[in-house]
């Protein structure tokens, strides 16, 4: 007990000192706040997805502060903009940990940005909460993954497409942005499809650069490929390229009843900029949809709508919530609970206290942090786009699914341990 208090005091005085050197007047103020870093792109190609995550994080922090903060201390957000520039993510993370002395960071969307931050948090023993669905194949002691692993999103979605309900797809176009998340996910999916008896000739893998905007050839190719049998498209396109892709789909008249597109990175927010009428029936797989009906979600949506209006955020006239926002919300609350359990913001103690944390999530289930593998147990939903840009849930898992960060469909993963390596 005594030890805890002393180290905690040490951390605090370190925070105080760091701030004190910058400005003496804020010394008294800094002593009773806990700094929290927010590391999301507010400009560049990923801004379309990440800006709201910054806003929802600020909302959650406001909410916690309004209820008295954490251990009697207010949370103080430190927002930085890594501008969709992957090396800049590492730089900004370093700045947050070493200069601003934040207790924890909430941030990143693309896997390449997370991979860029990873060595920094590991070296400086920081803490990162990563709120987005990703490809797995990673388990760091310093990261908590509140988004889905492949078995909580990609695999169930493909199983659904192959089922009678989902249209009984026999051929698959794996279409993605050219970086680590789509490449790895597609590697897993290819192995999975093979295990289901789909031949290599019935799989077409395609990649486009970040920010690609001319999807004519791709859509024409999908059309051509679909003439060879019932086809579905599995899209891991990230960021604002989705807008021209869906525009082109609509303009070329490729309907969901013929060739359904299931996306893993397209939610309510990404569809805001698109005329959704031609897209009705295309799918998305997530662990949360805004259209879910339950009291926790109603409260979450109401809180967000009120916050967006009060802060006059862009798009406040039509407030939208989505899966990574929910994951951010869960992550911050779980971190708060863990800090209170550990009675410290020290990284190692918080990590130990995170195991087994539960939180009533807006998804309608109680989310549980796994005892070992730093991932959440999450329900899986598959939704179809409606004409108003919302999703109809057409399939869901009965209970939350445990994450498998090491996909069994990648060779050699059976030997890997389901918990981070101890250092």
């Amino acid at each position, binding site marked *: 007990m005594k030890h805890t208090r002393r180290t905690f005091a040490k951390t605090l005085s370190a925070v105080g000192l760091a701030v004190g050197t910058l400005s003496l007047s804020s010394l008294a103020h800094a002593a009773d706040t806990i700094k929290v870093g927010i590391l999301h792109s*507010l*400009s*560049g*190609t990923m*801004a*379309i997805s990440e*800006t709201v995550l910054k806003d929802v994080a600020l909302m959650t922090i406001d909410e916690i502060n309004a209820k008295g903060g954490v251990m009697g201390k207010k949370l103080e957000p430190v927002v930085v*903009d890594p501008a969709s520039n992957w090396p800049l993510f590492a730089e900004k993370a370093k700045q947050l940990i070493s200069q601003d002395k934040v207790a924890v960071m909430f941030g990143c969307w693309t896997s390449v940005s997370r991979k860029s931050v990873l060595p920094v948090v590991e070296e400086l023993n920081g803490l990162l909460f990563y709120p987005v669905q990703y490809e797995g194949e990673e388990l760091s002691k310093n990261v908590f993954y509140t988004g889905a692993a492949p078995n909580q999103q990609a695999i169930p979605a493909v199983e659904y497409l192959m089922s*009678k*309900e*989902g*249209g009984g797809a026999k051929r698959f176009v794996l279409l993605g942005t*050219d970086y680590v998340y789509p490449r790895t996910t597609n590697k897993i999916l290819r192995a999975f499809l093979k295990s289901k008896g789909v031949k290599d000739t019935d799989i077409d893998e*395609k*990649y*486009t*650069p970040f*920010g*690609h*905007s*001319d999807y*004519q*050839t*791709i859509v*024409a*190719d999908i*059309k*051509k490929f*679909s*003439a*060879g*049998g*019932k086809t579905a498209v599995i899209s891991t396109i990230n960021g*604002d390229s989705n*807008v*021209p892709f869906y*525009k*082109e789909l*609509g*303009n*070329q*008249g490729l309907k*969901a*009843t*013929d060739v*359904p597109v299931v996306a893993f990175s397209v939610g309510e927010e990404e569809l*805001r*900029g698109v*005329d959704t009428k*031609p897209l009705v*029936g295309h*799918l998305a797989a997530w662990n949360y949809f805004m259209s879910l009906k339950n009291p926790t979600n109603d409260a979450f949506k109401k809180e967000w709508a009120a916050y967006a209006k009060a802060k006059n955020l*862009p798009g406040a006239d039509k407030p939208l919530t989505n899966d990574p926002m929910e994951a951010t919300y869960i992550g911050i609350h779980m971190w708060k609970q863990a800090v209170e359990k550990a009675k410290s913001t020290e990284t190692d103690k918080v990590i130990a206290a995170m195991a087994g944390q539960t939180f009533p999530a807006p998804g309608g289930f109680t989310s549980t942090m796994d005892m070992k593998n730093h991932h959440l147990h999450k329900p899986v939903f598959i939704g*179809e786009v*409606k*004409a108003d840009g919302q999703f*109809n*849930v*057409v399939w869901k898992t009965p209970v939350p699914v445990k994450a498998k960060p090491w996909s069994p469909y990648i060779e050699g993963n059976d030997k890997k341990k389901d918990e981070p390596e101890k250092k």
Partner: protein
Amino acid sequence: MHLRALTVVLVTWLLAANAHALTAEQVRAMAIGENDARAAAIGLVAASGDDKAPAFFQALLDDAVKTAGDKVFVVRDGKALDAASGAVVMLPDNAEDVVNSNRMRREIEGALASLKLLSTDANQRAAAIKELHDGVDESKLPLIEKAYAIESDAKLKSELGLLRAGVLISSADKTKRLEAAKSLADSHEPATKTLLLDRLKPDAETEPEVRAQLELSVSAIQSRLAWGERLGVVFTGASLGSILLLVALGLAITYGLMGVINMAHGELMMIGAYATYVVQNIFKAHLPGLFDYYIVAAIPAAFLASALVGAAMERSVIRFLYGRPLETLLATWGISLVLMQGVRSIFGAQNVQVENPRWLSGGVQAMSNLTLPFNRIAIIVFAVLVLASLAFMVARTRLGLFVRGVTQNRPMAACMGVNTAKVDTYAFALGSGIAGLAGCALSQVGNVGPDLGQGYIVDSFMVVVLGGVGQLAGTVYAALGLGILNKLLEGWTGAVLAKIMVLVFIVVFIQKRPQGLFAMKGRSAEA
């Protein structure tokens, strides 16, 4: 098996043929329960040819059907009707939407189309046949047979014949299968090819005679579809080419004719796109009735906005740097950063949403497997118009004459009394304005954000350098050539590799022919 299923359907059809109103049980079966059962119920109702069925199917497709307990309602214009009786009723508070997945929508669309086959309106019948092209199952055969028997239009009749063959191809009778395989060779539809390929799977068709015919039919359809594919590549190439042409035309003047390495060219496009965005917002707020025509006002606005910024750039910075390419490069790059940050401060760092007017959404189906989107067609036409007016301006007007004169021999032009400084400003503003037009066009196909120009600056320099500095014709050939080459390679190797290969090609080409496709003497060529 098939025959028995057929008889069942036929009998239910005959039995139900007299019913002319949906019963409460039928409605309930179609709206409530598991999808399998609902699909079966929908199939039965469709086969009965009920008068009321199309309206109910349409309501299902429009997501206008709600249920509460075992009651089914259709909600239209805020009024709730009992789905079976049609009486106006109060909608209970606990009413829930009927959720239709893709599969259900496919079933309902098919059912609706099969009912429309018997419509008296030939257009409706044609639409129904088109709808049914992608999936007819046996349950629809009786209706198709009936429609085939009474169809008077020869073209529609032959298409109905194809539909019928599509069902008979999996008939139990070998001669029927053979006949169907033969007649399907006349199809233009990719869906038919899918169907035949399905039949060609080892366990699907065992008769060698039918298999041989199937293969013949597949290759006949394939050769027909191949034309659509080839034309598709040409069209997408032309479309990309027209975009490249638009983004490069402005640069062809500022860099090509005037020799200014303008790194802010992309940002001038971005300003054009933002001008379009502003005009769109003004129309949305003040003239919502004319929203579909905002683009007409946006074109001159984009031109003027970029031209003014360009003129200001020329007057304040560039005119002091003529003949010093390196300084110009750095200065214009600095200006590009300033412009981007300026836009970020005014409009925010996020992309803004520019909506297509309704007449630019969708496309025209040129062939069964080739759809030409309207926005692409519009951009091609727009590029041609801009090119034509620019060519006219340079070749036929006084300003064009001065520009050519000044770029070819500045001292001589000055001696002849041409105000070269003024001509420079006008020419630079013209090039900038055309960049603005390109931005306006880009807003219709891609994202509009502060970084918009960054993605095109390399492309536009590539086109001008490849085409040959100082020549409009070179720019046109280079833009179209690069567009089609890029699309050919993309179809072959994917988007990422295609881009690399095009770059490598240009590097090699410039090594062999530094002056580009067409060379002309000008200030930059002399330097």
